[in-house]
């Protein structure tokens, strides 16, 4: 419980340090036709460099069941998520940690995101998991 809280706290700090909590910075990455900001690539690169090294021994010691199939729900879901991400500039992590802005925008976005997930459960009841 406390360790999950700490992990969430560190994850959130990382989002703010990297600038990814600000949707404008995310959209400047996605906007390749504008004043392009490649920062998000380095955020992803830095994070994956860490997980790529440390995940392997952890998962070897305690294997987990992961889906491996590349199927239609994966592609359709990722495509729809990307469209929402490109419109708003928020993906789930930054949206949650940006609640601290207490802006009307974020207070509309987060409930809409939760509602979208609940609606998806009705359409496709299979459990979550990357």
């Amino acid at each position, binding site marked *: 419980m406390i360790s999950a809280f700490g992990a969430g706290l560190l994850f*959130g700090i990382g989002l703010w*340090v990297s600038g990814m909590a600000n949707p404008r910075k995310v959209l400047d990455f996605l906007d390749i036709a504008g004043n392009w900001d490649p920062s998000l690539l*380095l*955020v992803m690169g830095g994070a994956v460099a860490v997980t790529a090294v440390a995940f392997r021994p952890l998962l070897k010691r305690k294997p987990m069941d992961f889906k491996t199939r590349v199927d239609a729900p994966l592609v359709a879901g990722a495509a729809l*998520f990307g469209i929402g*991400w*490109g419109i*708003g500039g*928020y993906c789930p992590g930054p949206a949650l940690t940006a609640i601290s802005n207490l802006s009307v925008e974020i207070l509309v976005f987060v409930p809409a995101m*939760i509602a979208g997930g609940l609606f998806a459960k009705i359409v496709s009841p299979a459990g979550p998991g990357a």
Partner: protein
Amino acid sequence: MDNFTPVSALAGGVLIGLASVWLLAANGRIAGVSGILHGLFAQPPGDRRWRAAFIAGLILAGFAWHALAGGFSPRELGLGWVALAGVLVGFGTRIGGGCTSGHGVCGLGRFSLRSLVAVMVFMATGMAATFVMRHVL
């Protein structure tokens, strides 16, 4: 590219990676924020405590950062667009089984082809949607 911030981007990315390793090592869980959030509303009650704790940490990090460094000014994006974006993000991550953290940070870290496909797809549609929003509409 005058808005490129390589040092803070890399540093923040490393922190995000460390947090993901922490959650896997200590809780045996994958730090996929969309999955953690959706599970909070969909799983049997026994599974909810660690999810709520992670999300509480994520939210508290924002308030702590706000107190020390400040947040950011709001944009001029219509609330209809904001609501549509939120629904698409929630719906899409639930159907596609992950977001930038679950498929991106964690999936790529375990060299999952499924996650690589997801990342390429949402990057592509994200860029397309941003192009339309900023340069077409």
